[in-house]
């Protein structure tokens, strides 16, 4: 299994599309920091964290991680690789889980670098403008935990993307997710009761790390735990479905 995982990680690393995605991720972060540099004195870093601006910026690397996960298992090279792999390792379960785990693990360095650059850049810009808005150590801790949660979310997104890629076997799993996010934001996000089950809203709540919030009934809810369970459940359901399909479906 370790050999399979290592082979998949190597294959993931050498694919040109993955390199382009990593470059796009870093470019995006630099662009965000460049724009923020012009208005660093508009709001404090603590305010940006509380308003969810930082978590919003972290969502793009997460989506790109999902795209990378889809591309790991789709396309001619991926199909041929899977076929070749199955001729030397006929245990389909091992092959499948190695792909899903490899997708989740492979995106970590890129997203970690992107989050680190984003967090350090934001902190540096606001410290320079003397607009931190809180104790530096506390802000640094919050930023670190936000980055860690974004990293976990990116790993889940990449694993889910790989599972979805196995299911549909086409690259259009990427626009499929984009369409879903659009519906999620416009339909589920608009109505208050359905918002509890919106993937985007829960991903945002997870990255923000909202501990408590006032629910509609006036009771204190636990959005962080709810979001974590929901996102984990969706990822687990997707990967299990992908496994069942991969086990019984013909390999092209």
């Amino acid at each position, binding site marked *: 299994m370790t*050999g*399979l995982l*290592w*082979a*998949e990680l*190597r*294959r993931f690393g*050498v*694919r*040109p599309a993955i390199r382009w995605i990593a470059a796009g991720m870093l470019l995006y972060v630099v662009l965000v920091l460049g724009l923020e540099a012009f208005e660093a004195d508009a709001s404090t870093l603590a305010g940006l964290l509380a308003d969810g601006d930082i978590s919003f910026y972290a969502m793009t690397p997460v989506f790109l991680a999902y795209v990378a996960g889809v591309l790991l298992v789709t396309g*001619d*090279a*991926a*199909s*041929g*690789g*899977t*076929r*070749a*792999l*199955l*001729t*030397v*390792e*006929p*245990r389909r379960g091992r092959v499948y889980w190695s792909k899903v785990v490899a997708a989740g693990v492979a995106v970590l360095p890129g997203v970690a670098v992107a989050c680190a650059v984003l967090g350090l850049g934001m902190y540096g810009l606001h410290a320079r403008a003397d607009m931190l808005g809180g104790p530096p150590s506390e802000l640094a801790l919050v930023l670190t935990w936000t980055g860690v949660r974004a990293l976990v979310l990116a790993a889940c997104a990449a694993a889910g993307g790989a599972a979805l890629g196995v299911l549909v076997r086409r690259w259009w799993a990427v626009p499929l997710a984009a369409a879903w996010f659009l519906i999620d934001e416009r339909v589920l996000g608009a109505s208050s009761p359905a918002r509890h089950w919106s993937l985007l809203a829960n991903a945002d709540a997870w990255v923000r790390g909202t501990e408590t919030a006032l629910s509609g009934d006036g009771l204190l809810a636990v959005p962080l735990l709810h979001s974590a369970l929901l996102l984990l459940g969706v990822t687990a359901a997707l990967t299990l479905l992908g496994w069942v399909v991969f086990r*019984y479906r*013909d*390999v092209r």
Partner: protein
Amino acid sequence: MPYPVRVIPGSDTAVETLGLRKTYRSVRGRVVGVDGLDLRMPAGGVHALLGLPGSGKTTTLRLLTGLAHADAGAIKIFGVPVPDGLPDLAGRIGAVVGEPGFQAGLSGRRNLALLASAAGVPRTRVDEVLARVLLTDRARLAYGSCSVDERRRLALAAALLHDPDLLVVDEPSEGLDAVGTREIRQALRRLADRGVTVLVATGVLTEAQQIADTVTVLDDGRVLAQGTVADLLGDARVSVRVRLDEPGKAATTLRAAGFKVRADGELLHVDGVAEPADISRALAKQKLFPGELAPQREDLAAVVGRLRPVVPQTPKVPSRAEGRAARKAAEQQTADRKKAADQRKAAKEAADERAAADVEAAEKAAAKQAAADDKAARKQEAVDARAARREAQKTGAKALLSRRASEPSSASDGQGTADADTAKADPVEPGPQKDQGPAKKAPSKGQSQSQSDNRAKGSR
């Protein structure tokens, strides 16, 4: 268990299938890949799956390697049921089925190393297999820059990583040049000589004849024949191309003489001929003399045609759908015929109507002409009659004048009488100018009578 499996008794064969069936979904419904495939392949040597494109060779290999799942039937490889027992066979089977999906940016050696790490094979094995396929030097190049031949050999090297007991290769010489083809065939033959059981699927007859020990001929997903190459594809058999003026009669003659004949336009192909002169003799007996009689090495189509069982022509019972279609076609044909008859009838009626109208118009024109002629004749008669009367009146007046001149005494007495006579003799004597119009418009009774008489004369 993913599909129903029938139990095959234990055997020494390398590969054995029983009633294997695989169908694919397509836009036109289910397409049969293999149907009831019963395959027996002995351990050791090279075994060829031979068949035309679409005969089910690749599907069979995909089923054997677990890349595809069968709809029905059973497979055993080295006595282990497949696909359930495939994990037990891991390392004993190597396969080249389709493109291996190597990374174009990595070297051949690197790609093999990745596969070796996935398969749990030590890295030293990579160099061994590269040496075996004669790629040690070229393996440093990026896979994307390798030739087709080198890619084929790299794929073969990947299949040999485990040092398998069974090597499965699909179309080994596809896309290769003559040198590459020869090298890959030699490599496969060498492997077989080292004790590896090699199963190749090929559509090239000479390939099977050159490297295979045993062969299975597939056709439409079924086994046509299995046996040794010498028995099934022996070199002695040739196909003879015959060209002559009466191919139909010649084909009948040759068939009657026991030859297998395929007609190809004006050409005849006689398959499985041991002695071509027999064909000339058989034709000469019927006074048929071919212009061309060319012996040819039997091709794969000829082999399949020769091995294909001759099915007696039985009247085919149409299916319900076919029956419905036939009925519909017959009804359509009847309706078309009726429509055509109606159209013909309508056209005929229209022509008759047109002819009748023409006749009627001609009659009317003739009648009109006759009426016009009649009118002109009457007018002429009236003019003649008037002229005659005027002439008679003049004659009468002259006679009266001469009588008056001869009888002067009685002239004064008979004045009124002469006037009365004149009036009697010429009732249309022109009177004063104002009375002439009405007289012309309303002729007197005597004038009308005279005109009627003249008309009657004219008519006669």
